[in-house]
């Protein structure tokens, strides 16, 4: 049921993909009647005259594994790591970003959140801005490679959500990071 709602959300969002930046909760599910007929991408067939119109979200989709989560796919790789105080995308991560750009280009309904992170040293607010710069660097590259602006939101978690605990060089390196999440994953 939850997956269905999420899928439905993607469809509705796609229908208004030029929505201005009136942001609400990112994973918000719109409560609207299933009038999928006007929406591109949603195949509808009248089942019975004068009654229910069914919305079929399975058309064009294979059941089972998504390339986004298939460990064999580069799309399952979601993290980009940085050097201290740096925000440029190192060569070793460029293939990863290119693959996600291709996915966004091929799946115009797909939406992505990029979360920038920093290590714990220094001002929390400055780190928040530094994480934002990292996330926006990824977003810029995605758009350069064909993703559309409304598909991608870049936000920062600063130093607030460290993946690795502790105050070692190893932990800090783990925490200087951008993470890619698709709608439904956050």
């Amino acid at each position: 049921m939850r997956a269905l709602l999420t899928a439905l959300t993607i469809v509705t969002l796609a229908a208004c993909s030029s929505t201005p930046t009136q942001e609400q909760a990112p994973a918000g599910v719109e409560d609207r009647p299933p009038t999928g007929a006007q929406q591109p991408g949603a195949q509808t067939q009248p089942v019975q005259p004068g009654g229910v119109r069914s919305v079929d979200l399975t058309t064009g989709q294979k059941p089972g594994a998504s390339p986004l989560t298939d460990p064999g796919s580069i799309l399952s790789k979601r993290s980009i790591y940085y050097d201290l105080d740096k925000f440029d995308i190192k060569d070793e991560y460029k293939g990863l970003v290119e693959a996600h750009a291709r996915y966004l280009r091929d799946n115009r309904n797909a939406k992505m959140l990029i979360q920038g992170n920093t290590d714990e040293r220094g001002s929390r607010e400055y780190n928040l801005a530094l994480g934002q710069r990292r996330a926006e660097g990824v977003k810029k590259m995605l758009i350069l490679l064909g993703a559309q602006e409304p598909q991608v939101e870049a936000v920062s978690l600063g130093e607030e959500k460290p993946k690795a605990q502790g105050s070692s060089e190893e932990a800090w390196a783990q925490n200087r990071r951008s993470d890619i999440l698709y709608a439904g994953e956050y």
Partner: protein
Amino acid sequence: MKFLLTLLAFVAFSGAARAQLSIEITGAGAQRIPIAIASFPGEASLPAPISAIVRADLERSGLFRSIEVPRMVPTPTEASDVNFPEWRARLADALVLGSVLQRPDGRFEARFRLFDVVKQTPLGGIAYTLTAQQARATAHRIADFIYEKLTGERGVFSTRIAYVVKRGTRYELQIADADGAGEETALASFEPIISPAWSPDGRRLAYVSFENKKPVVYVHSLLDGKRHVAANFKGSNSAPAWSPDGNRLAVVLSREGGSQLYLMNADGSGVRRLAQSATIDTEPVFSPDGQSLYFTSDRGGSPQIYRMPANGGDAQRVTFEGTYNVSPRISADGKRLVYVARNNGRFQVATLDLTTRQTQVLTDSDRDESPSIAPNGRMVLFATVVGGRGILSAVSVDGRVRQRLSVSAADVREPAWGPFIK
């Protein structure tokens, strides 16, 4: 209770153990006024001993040294004749005598009188009517009176502080008296809370909460627990700062790309961009006259503090020493900048006299963050790390008086010293 805070509906209240800040004084001023504060007869019927709280407040300021008062029969009160030579022999420069009486209606009367022992004259006194629950607040007011009479500057014992406690995965935005007692939780969440900022009237806090999986600025009314979103635009929303009139907020938004300065009404309306830079601009704070904004920017290649007109315009660089100067705060008289500087990899609270351009590092710790100046400009409260744990620390602006405030088994961070209570 004056500030009974309402917990939000979406927060499950757990009967978590009380987490009072405990204070340890680690340094004091060079010259401290020796003061004798006798116990107030009758104060044992109150839940908090007034004379002991007054004594602790004054000692904590680093400007007073409490003199032991022997048991006296009968215990003198504010109405007694004072034997000045006797108090002088105990080396007291000042003396406080008082009493507490229970009234037939269940309330109490607390009276005190302050004496200059050297000049052998009374310096004034006050009688308060209070409920049992107001014993601490009354003691802080008495301490404020004594402090102001003897130092010439306003005391901050009646003010409150806000800070964030992180225990496991739980974050609590708490409000406590300036001595760390009487803490109350304004907001509890499983996502981070940062950058609390007091409204100038002390009734509201603006802060950044990550409850929507991204930074969003809220304004939270302490009395009724009501809160509203002030800034939730695409991208990140952070670093709220109140204008001195309490009507507007300076915030940092990334909605147009990059972390940039904006001005908005406190209700979130009227958003206006203040500056354009291709780099990071963040941590805005208004000058006390409301005419300027100090902020952090790395437009010059490293994060430094800048100043610009509050309505926008050209920015001037303020800090020049070192390659990392952030988190500007400005004293109430507008003459002193307090900030965090990185010196050889250590992050330390520093101060810059804006008139003489003299800088001074105030601490010897190495993970200092989020300084906050007391409303009388005497102390700076900040977060630091000791033994791997986040604690609050306070240092006088001359670097001499030092205190530590910690909560057992939890991290404390993001302190904000509230304004004077009218």
